[in-house]
């Protein structure tokens, strides 16, 4: 009798908008901080810390059923990726702020500077924890055996690339009106093309792998490519979030457009990519199908 018994496939409903926002802003802030440090773009580093503090933390806090117990989040760092993520976010904020402070005029009295040994150590911790914030959300989801679509180590890797893309997108959105537009566009343009191409390859490898794994994972992929999330996926994630930004970035790279126009096109690339990045998290969370009981 039981061999014939099946339970219909069901999507997860527990992690919704606030988690999508938290994962999205967390990725952006980590990528933005790393890239801004590499590009010596201090506005970007400050913006990253504002985003993670007032965006990610707020969304995560209000998603909790009992937010007044949030301090308990630190208690299982040995086993839980949510605990590890909380620690990483905290380290990122604390050491990120400490590394940024000397660049403000009011804090010249601090006993470290960006160039000195202590300042470099603080920055190193901030960078490592920023990278941790970029990747940990992928691990949070991939540690869920109940949802086979998420249960793969490809997910943290894709999250890292989306975080870098989000960081680059945020920088493009900010620099168009600054004097640093030309310098940063020259450096970040080719890197951006590499990020987008890598993300496209990874995303389709991930979907192909999942399609040929389990029934529940295949249903998740079907939902994305031909089911009820096909519009957000093809329209938002692929076309708006990857294809158009790639085409525009390549255009600015190989055209003879002057810098104000290039910077404005790249700002548009940034906005489109940010939109695509959010829809990616939305699609991934919404298409999380539980494994069948039997």
């Amino acid at each position: 009798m039981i061999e014939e018994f099946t339970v219909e496939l069901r999507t997860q409903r527990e992690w919704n908008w606030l988690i999508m926002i938290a994962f999205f802003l967390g990725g952006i802030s980590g990528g933005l901080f790393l890239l801004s440090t590499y590009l010596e773009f201090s506005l970007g580093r400050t913006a990253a810390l504002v985003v993670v503090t007032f965006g990610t933390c707020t969304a995560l806090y209000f998603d909790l059923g009992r937010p007044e117990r949030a301090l308990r989040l630190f208690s299982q760092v040995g086993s839980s990726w949510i605990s590890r993520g909380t620690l990483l976010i905290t380290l990122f904020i604390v050491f990120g702020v400490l590394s940024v402070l000397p660049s403000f005029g009011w804090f010249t009295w601090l006993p470290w500077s960006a160039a000195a040994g202590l300042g470099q150590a603080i920055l190193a911790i901030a960078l490592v924890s920023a990278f941790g914030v970029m990747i940990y959300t992928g691990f949070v989801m991939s540690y869920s055996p109940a949802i086979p679509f998420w249960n793969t180590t490809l997910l943290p890797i894709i999250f890292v690339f989306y975080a870098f893309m989000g960081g680059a997108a945020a920088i493009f959105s900010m620099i168009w009106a600054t004097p640093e537009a030309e310098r940063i566009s020259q450096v970040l343009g080719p890197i951006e093309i590499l990020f987008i191409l890598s993300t496209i390859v990874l995303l389709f490898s991930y979907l192909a792998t999942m399609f040929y794994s389990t029934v529940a994972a295949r249903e998740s992929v079907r939902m994305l490519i031909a089911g009820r999330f096909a519009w957000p996926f093809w329209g938002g994630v692929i076309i708006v979030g990857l294809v158009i930004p790639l085409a525009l970035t390549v255009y600015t790279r190989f055209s003879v457009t002057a810098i104000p126009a290039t910077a404005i096109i790249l700002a548009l690339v940034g906005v489109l990519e940010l939109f695509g990045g959010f829809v990616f998290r939305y699609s991934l969370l919404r298409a999380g199908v539980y494994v069948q009981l039997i």
Partner: protein
Amino acid sequence: MRKVMVIDLRRCIGCQACTVACKAENATPPGLLWTQVLEKEEGKYPTPRKTFLPVLCNHCKDPACKRVCPTGATYQREDGLVLVDQDKCLGCRACITACPYQVRFYKRKFGSYYPNGLTPFEELGYKRHQPGVVQKCTFCSHRVDQGLEPACVQTCPTNCRFFGDFDDPNSDVSRLIRERYAFQLRAELATDPSVYYLP
């Protein structure tokens, strides 16, 4: 000692007496079904039939829910029972997305079963449940501690549920698992559930 439950699927008639017994014993609010019997129609006219699958927390030996819990609210006793410390849980629901058996529940607010507000039974019983935290079957740990069986096992009119010590080779559950080719749900996920089904 490892407490396990064995469910004989050939005996289950889908009467949901276990569901009601659990409700009565644990006073769980609406939307929280710590145990229930899933059912499905099969076959075609003139020989259709219903098949039943009682489900509850599997109290896994290697629980995915415990691994992801960021506060240690989900813990495991020495007798294998997996429980939630409601005072530690902060309602992140990571355990719900990690549980392959979909038997964990979460409510931000509790309602009543009746339109005119909470009954005296509900008022008293709901004090045992906190809103905004994750809830699940406890294998009636309060009864087990007194040497009793879980309410669903005691109530089942067809005696399809058995409860006992897996580590005792002479217990009913050990014998049934051994002799009746018992199986676990989604055994391939390596969580080693403590609920066994007899085909």
